[in-house]
């Protein structure tokens, strides 16, 4: 027991030591990538040590090694759930929600009347806790992934809308005046000035949306679902005290979410390469 706790403490210090060495020269690409990995490994090692050292019951918090074993043994279940929740629910909802928000943002931006009326109301609606919306949407759209997609649409819609509207307004006065001196049409100004200038904001919305989409799809499954999906598996397994499977699903969620986020960040980097925040 003492041994495992000692292991946890040791792992923690070793990890921090390695990382402060890595941080000494942050210009190097591999060091930037290695640091979070080392940090994660440190946390996992400390977790293993603490769970074993304090002999924490497996039905409360399983050790990482147990979770990993379950993960490897349940790949087929995890895959089915992943397809149901992430591909069908989250991704389709994300595309619909972000797409709709984008188009409406352009419309709002075009008509200041809408802007003054819709944004305050929109902010109010955005404050609706979606946890409450989820059962209603399940009631409206049925049990399968469609209702999950609907929850995701509601969740990603407003962050995307607000960011896009703000981005479309984020052109400098001089940049707009320049377009005026060319007597450029509305659409020319939109495509050649406002959309490019809005990209950093739009990507902010898209990035926030990635984590929201995942959470939304999973949470919606708590309120009714077919007998597959990550949310279904999590809630069912908690009831069965199969905490190792719960954590395996959480690991899938974290990996999927981080990957989704990372992909958007990469696309952002290539689209908004010109923005000061991307240049350092």
């Amino acid at each position, binding site marked *: 027991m003492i041994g495992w706790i000692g292991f946890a403490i040791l792992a923690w210090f070793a990890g921090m030591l390695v990382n402060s060495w890595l941080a000494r020269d942050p210009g190097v690409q591999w060091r930037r990538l290695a640091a979070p990995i080392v940090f994660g490994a440190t946390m996992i090692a400390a977790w293993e040590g603490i769970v074993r050292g304090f002999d924490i019951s497996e039905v409360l918090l399983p050790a990482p090694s147990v979770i990993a074993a379950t993960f490897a043994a349940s790949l087929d279940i995890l895959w089915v759930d992943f397809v149901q929740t992430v591909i069908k629910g989250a991704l389709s909802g994300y595309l619909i929600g972000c797409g709709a928000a984008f188009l409406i943002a352009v419309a709002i931006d075009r008509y200041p009347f809408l802007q003054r009326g819709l944004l305050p109301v929109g902010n109010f609606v955005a404050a609706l806790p979606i946890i409450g919306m989820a059962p209603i949407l399940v009631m409206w759209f049925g049990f399968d992934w469609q209702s999950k997609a609907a929850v995701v649409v509601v969740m990603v819609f407003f962050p995307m809308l607000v960011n896009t509207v703000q981005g479309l307004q984020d052109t*400098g006065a*001089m*940049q707009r*005046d*320049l*377009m*005026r*001196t*060319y*007597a*450029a049409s509305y659409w*020319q100004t939109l495509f*050649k*000035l406002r959309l*490019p*200038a809005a*990209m950093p904001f739009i990507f902010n919305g898209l990035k926030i949306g990635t984590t929201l989409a995942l959470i939304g799809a999973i949470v919606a499954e708590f309120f009714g679902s077919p007998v597959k999906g990550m949310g279904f598996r999590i809630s069912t397994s908690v009831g069965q005290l199969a905490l190792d499977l719960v954590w395996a699903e959480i690991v899938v969620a974290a990996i999927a979410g981080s990957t989704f986020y990372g992909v958007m960040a990469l696309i952002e980097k290539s689209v*908004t*390469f*010109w*923005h000061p925040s991307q*240049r350092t």
Partner: protein
Amino acid sequence: MTIIQAQNLDLTFQTNDGPIHALKDVSLDIEKGDFISFIGPSGCGKTTFLRVMADLEQPTGGSVTVNGVAPEDARKARAYGYVFQAAGLYPWRTIGGNIRLPLEIMGISKAEQTERVARVLELVELAGFEKKFPWQLSGGMQQRASIARALSFDADILLMDEPFGALDEIVRDHLNEQLLKLWDQTGKTIAFVTHSIPEAVYLSTKIVVMSPRPGRITDVIDSPLPKDRPLDIRDTPEFLEVAHRVRDGLRAGHLDE
């Protein structure tokens, strides 16, 4: 032929600190082929006046015509090129792409675009920088690119707001010479804002001295200098005399305060 005619222009900005009288009772005629410089202390309304001509600002009184029509119609007919006080290049476009922008908007053919971009880059000595992005250039180079952009579509009127402010003297001298040559060859009408007395005198056929609070014209000085101006004309007595008049006008404006 009168290209730009301003009569009793008035412009007041409403701010929460109360109104600012940026232009008061400003009247001026600019003839075809004129090179007019505006000079005056910070905040005297030079930029504002230029913006009124460009239909970027609405006067609160008086009238302006550009090419005989309202500024709005002139703008829509793409009658002028405007160089802003700051370069204002779009960071997501290369230098070439920035210069191509007005050409795209005006629907000029691809081939012609390429040809024109090459020509104006040559003119401001930026050939070879076409593919670079704005932030990869020094401030002075950016300013030159923005001048090239305003020249690319070959409008008959040029409105230039301190285009050479960020440049060192040698480059500035050089660009002054180029601008004079261009003006001479093409017969454009140019309105030019500057802080430098020698620059104003060297370039202009007419120098307009302005004064702040309220912004107004205090003096209009016709230059007796010939159209052909080598750089060392700046050491001639005629030149120095005009420069003196301008300096006196400016100083009077400062004493007012």
